[in-house]
Structures are given as structure tokens and as C-alpha cells.
């Protein structure tokens, strides 16, 4: 399968009324690779991500998964196809416990012949599974059965990333996962990202932190004003080139 990208966006367009947010963006993501998605605020990164994860639909263009055209019209279809997204606002439910957050929208439940909403939850199974994932990822939580409202920014971020790792089978998208974190908490999250990649997922990482890009990303795609303006392998040598691509000040 190594010849086919796990995700391939071709000539994607998206308009919101008069705003042309994506103007023909193409992008590939491969298994076992971290792809950095860069761009200034309003460049279209979040819109692109929301199209891939099924929140918005592309107006034009196509999305292929493992080479097949994929109809990702809703978030649950995207998740079923193996795409997990960690949104910038984390999309956590403050009033629910970590385990309840993990499984929200796809609860372990019975009996299976009923529609999901009418089934009974299997709390014990969900607690057990979630706890083992938390342990495997070495995430430290003060309390496993308290609502996440009472947890710190880093812990919440870890929960959101851990949730993605449970279900990711193809692609994990992380939208600025370290934006609100201190140095030590950022380090933890970057370790999680590495782990996701080593488990054979394609990872798309949106970030403004060039250090993290150079450290982690195998490839970087730069968007500006809804267009892809560059794609390169980030390293110390081309850091300046990357930044000027992002801000649009060609040297």
C-alpha cells in the first residue's frame, strides 16, 4: 500500500458566502509520517481540516482515502473511515469524565441491533478501556472518575489526544495541540504525536511553533490566503524560507 497516500485532497475549493476560504488546495498524507500544515491566521488551515474531518463539505474537488474517493459528509462518517481530529478547542465535554469523553458519540453499548441512541451504555467496559489507554500513553491524571472540568490544560490536551489515539486507524489531525501549553506539557503532547506516527498513522499537525515543525515534521505544506504556496522538508537550513512562505514576504 506504500504507493498510495492514505489521504489525498485534490483541488479542494470551499466558499463561505463571499469568502473564498480554499482555492484549489491539494495535499497528500502518508502513513508513518508527520505532515505539518502551516500558514498565517485565516490562511485556510482550519477550514481544510474541518473539510477532511467532515464538519464542512468541499464545494469542489475530491478527498480520497487509500486511493478510493471518500464521501465524508459528517463527522461520524469521517471517524468511521478512520480519521480522528483533535480540534483547537479540544472538543471536550467539561461535565463528563475522561472515559465518557473518550467514547462520546460512539459509546460501547448493547444490544447492537438497536440504534446507538437507544442502547444501554457499558460503563465498566468503557472505563476499563480508557484507563488502559491512559496508562499506555503514560498520561498522568489526578482522578480518573472526575469531570474533566477540574483538570489542567495539559491534562485536557492529553485526554483529547489520547481519545484520538484510541480510534485512529488512518489519519490523526491535530489543530494547534500545544498552543495553550507550557514547555513541559507541550513536550508530553509531542511525545504522543510521535507515538501516533510510530503506530502507523498519518499525522497532520497544525502549529505556529517552528521548533516543533523542524523537530517533528517530515514534510511541511504552507497555505496562504486559501492557496498552497509551498511544500518542503523542514530543517534548520530552510527555516527562514518556511517563515517567508507563511507570511508571504518572498526574499
Amino acid at each position, binding site marked *: 500500500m506504500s504507493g498510495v497516500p492514505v489521504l489525498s485532497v485534490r483541488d479542494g475549493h470551499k466558499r463561505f458566502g463571499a469568502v473564498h476560504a480554499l482555492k484549489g488546495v491539494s495535499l497528500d498524507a502518508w502513513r508513518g509520517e508527520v505532515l505539518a500544515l502551516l500558514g498565517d491566521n485565516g490562511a485556510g488551515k482550519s477550514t481544510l481540516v474541518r473539510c477532511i*474531518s467532515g*464538519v464542512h463539505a468541499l464545494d469542489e474537488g475530491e478527498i480520497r482515502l487509500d486511493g478510493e474517493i471518500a464521501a465524508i459528509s*459528517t*463527522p*461520524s*462518517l469521517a*471517524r468511521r473511515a478512520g480519521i480522528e*481530529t483533535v*480540534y483547537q*478547542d*479540544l*472538543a*471536550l*465535554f*467539561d*461535565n*463528563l*469524565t475522561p472515559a*465518557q469523553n473518550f467514547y*462520546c*458519540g*460512539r*459509546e460501547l*453499548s448493547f444490544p447492537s441491533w438497536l440504534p*446507538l*441512541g*437507544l*442502547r*444501554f*451504555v457499558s*460503563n465498566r467496559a468503557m*472505563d476499563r478501556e480508557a*484507563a488502559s489507554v*491512559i*496508562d499506555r500513553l503514560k*498520561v*498522568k*491524571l*489526578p*482522578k*480518573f*472518575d*472526575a*469531570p474533566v*472540568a*477540574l*483538570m*489542567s*490544560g*495539559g*491534562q485536557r490536551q492529553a485526554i483529547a489526544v489520547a481519545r484520538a489515539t484510541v480510534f485512529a486507524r488512518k489519519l490523526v489531525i491535530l489543530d494547534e495541540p500545544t498552543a495553550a501549553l*507550557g514547555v*513541559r*506539557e507541550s513536550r508530553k503532547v509531542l511525545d504522543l504525536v510521535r507515538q501516533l506516527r510510530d503506530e502507523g498513522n498519518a499525522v497532520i499537525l497544525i502549529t505556529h511553533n517552528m521548533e516543533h515543525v523542524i523537530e517533528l515534521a517530515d514534510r511541511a505544506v504552507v497555505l496562504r490566503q486559501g492557496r498552497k504556496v509551498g511544500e518542503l522538508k523542514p530543517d534548520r537550513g530552510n527555516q527562514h524560507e518556511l517563515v517567508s512562505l507563511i507570511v508571504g514576504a518572498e526574499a
Partner: protein
Amino acid sequence: MLAETAREPDATSGARGSQTHAQSASPVTVALRLLNFGPLLILAILIVVISLLTPNFLKPVNIGNILAQTAVIAIVALGQQLVILTRGIDLSVGANLALATVIGGLTYRVTDSGALVILAMLASGTLVGFINGAVFVFGRLPHPFIITLATLSICKGLALELAINHTTMRGMPEAVTLLGETSPLGVPNSFFVVLGVALLVFVLTKSMVWGRWVYAVGGNPKAAVEMGIPVKWVLVSTYAIAGLCAGIGAVVLSGRTAATSPLYGNLLELDTIAAVIIGGASFLGGRGHLGHALVGAVMIGVIRNALNLLNVDVFYQMIAIGLIIVLAVEADVLRNHLEARARASQAARTQ
């Protein structure tokens, strides 16, 4: 049923933390715990104080009275609680109940079947709730306030128009009036209806995926969409169930009075919202359980009853309930503030 509030929030199930901090009893966490127990504590104090003031209060007959008077508020408040959990509000429950009783009364004019009369009331209540939810969601309204206010007016008008001579209609089949009688155990039969509805709500919210989704939608509506929860249908079904509860309340009320009336359910929306908030559920959505609605409903019943026994003017009762609502909402705001503080100190500790 009152023991429900005592299980908040950390006694839920086998505590297993990958890393357990010593649970330090900072002033913030102590205050939070007090706030969680607050409503039940206040109810207990109220009962002690009132029974000292008027010896009649604790007599079995009077307790039966309180239970009978509280039944309707409790049942409808259980539905209101679900709506408030989703960050919503249902202002139409009182008028919905009035219309349901009138529909039941008219059905009784056509048939003697108790089952049909009850079914008509339940169907009427559910339909109005469904319309509330459907217009709110599919009409893309920003808030359920307006639509439920509109159905309040429509239901009230319909009930008055449909009722024979536009007023109270006497008579109900035996299956319904049975609910107004006292069981051999000494409690009114309507008490068992409350228990039944509470059990139903308990199963819906605690054991079913649907209930988990109700909390999710109230906790973070945007995330609920992103996590693939069918938010629209969760909301519509929530309003429909709130309507069903109003229909059940209609059966109980027309059973107790052996009559149906477009004048029933006046200000019931206030009583039920007050019950939920006084009981300790969050007005901001996502927090609370059926114990809150039940404690709140009993508290309202107790206060009303006590003020009656003490011969306090009925207008003062309204003022008292209003003041208590203000206190309860402020307690909710305080709780959110304290939780933010607890979160900050938690973060400081892990850094």
C-alpha cells in the same frame, strides 16, 4: 429518592486513577462539596424548623397533602430538568398541561374508556413537546425561549377555546380519579406515578446512550456535533419527553380534581424551572440529575404548605419562591467560579 443528591460527583464508581493525588481538602473543594449538598441540607433544615413552628406539619395527613400537591410539579420538573440539561428551557409546560387536560376531558365526553382518556392526554402533551423541539431545531432558532413562549400562548388559547363553555369540565373516568386517592400504604397514588417517571428518567439518563448525549449536548454543543452526535434529534426528543411529562402531569392533576380545565397549570413553568434550579442543577446546562428536580419540587411543596399552615398570605409565597430562585442561581454562579479556581490550582500543582 432524596439520597440521589448525596452521590455527587465523586462517589460514582470504583475510584481508579492512574496517579492519585492526595485529595487535599482546600477551602475551595470544601465549599464546592457544601454547594453540592446545599439543597438537600436546606430542605432538611426547612423541615426541622417548620415542624418546630407548626406541630401539624409532620402529621401523616399533612405529609400526604404535600406529596399530592408536589406530584404534578415533580413530574413536570423531571421533564423540565432534561430540557435544562441541554441548555434549553420549556416555558410551555403549564399551558401544555392545561391543553392536555382539556383534550382528556373532551375525550371523556366521547368515550368512557379510561385508557383512551389517558392516552389522549399523553399524546397531546408529547405532540406539543415535539412541535417545540422541531420548530426550535429545524426552524434554526437561536434559543428555545421564543418558541416555547409561543406554544404557551397557543396552547392556552386552544385549551380555552376547546373547553366546553371555556371553563372547567367536571368528571373523569375511574382509572384517572384513582390517582387522586390514597393507597393503603398511606401515601397518595400519585406518589407512585412520580416514582415511575423518576425511574424512567433515571434509566434514560444514567443507563442509555441517549442520556449521555443529553449531557454532552448541554456540556458542549459544538463538540457534540464534532463528535458525531445527532444533536438535532437529541434536542427534539428531549422536548418531546418534556411534553410527555406535562401530559403525565395532566393525568395526575385531573385525577386529583376529577375535572379538567383550561385554567390548570397556571405558572407551572415557573414552579418547574424553580424546582430544577433550587434543587441544584446548573442553569448553564450539562450539570444536574433527577435528584435535583425532585428535591427542588419537594422544597417548593414544603414551603407552600408551611406558609399555608402558618397562615401567610399567598402573595408572600410567590415572593418567597422568587427570592429562593435568585439565591439558587447565585449559588450556581458561585459554583462555576469555584470550579475555575479549583482548576487553576490544579494546573499550578501539575506544572
